[in-house]
């Protein structure tokens, strides 16, 4: 095996491990949030949580896979480390972006869930008698 292939294998291993770690973090900590949003409906919360994590895996692994190709051959360990660092850095940024996007989705879902019970934004100016229609 030459340096390029070893770099690819290391890249895939590192990226997959990072994706799994972030997805598991999201899965574990997002659940509490979703259970609250769905008013304690744990089955629904688990289902939505699972679907979100599947989407997360698909997008990230898809990106990792597409970004694999280097376009040049690697001749030394130094070049290998440099290429790995660049590629894994990109994966980390994408993961970070996706993670914050997921948090945003969670907060949106939560905000929408509390809206039906939200009180009026302003207090009344006065009171009056209302006759039936």
């Amino acid at each position, binding site marked *: 095996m030459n340096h390029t292939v070893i770099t690819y294998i290391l890249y895939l291993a590192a990226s997959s491990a990072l994706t799994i770690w972030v997805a598991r973090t999201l899965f574990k900590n997002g659940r509490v949030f979703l259970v609250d949003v769905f008013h304690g409906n744990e089955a629904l919360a688990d289902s939505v949580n699972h679907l979100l994590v599947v989407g997360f895996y698909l997008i990230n692994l898809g990106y990792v896979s597409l970004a694999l190709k280097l376009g040049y051959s690697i001749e030394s360990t130094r070049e290998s480390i440099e290429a790995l660092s660049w590629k894994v850095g990109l994966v980390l940024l994408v993961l970070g972006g996706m993670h914050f996007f997921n948090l945003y989705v969670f907060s949106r879902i939560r*905000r*929408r869930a509390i*809206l*039906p019970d*939200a009180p*009026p*934004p*302003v207090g*009344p*100016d*006065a*009171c*009056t*008698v*209302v*006759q*039936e*229609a």
Partner: protein
Amino acid sequence: MRTLIVLYDQRCDLCRRIQAWLISQPKYVDLAFVAAGSAEARRRLPQLDHGATMTELTVISDGGAVYRGAKAWLMCLWALREYRGWALELGSPEMMPLARRFIAWVSRNRFKFGYFSGPASKEP
């Protein structure tokens, strides 16, 4: 709160246009539209100052709470499913003065807008 009575100015195109839009929106709270100053308004709200309702939008909850001007607009938004979040944001202490000024400006110029925006849709 189940219903909001909206006393709107029937003479202005913009108001009727906004009324049509409000009717078309999905709601958390029903909006009952009554022309400001009409016999129906006087019958349902015997103690209200109906002169004031001709100059600014007035909304009354089924519990008798009266909201005027900017507050009335926010209550209409708050009644809508799609815009309750906006109402809560605009009603915050930071945004309220801005919302109040904007609504007062639109309200003062409401007959001009009607003139520029062409004929209003017929009343439902």
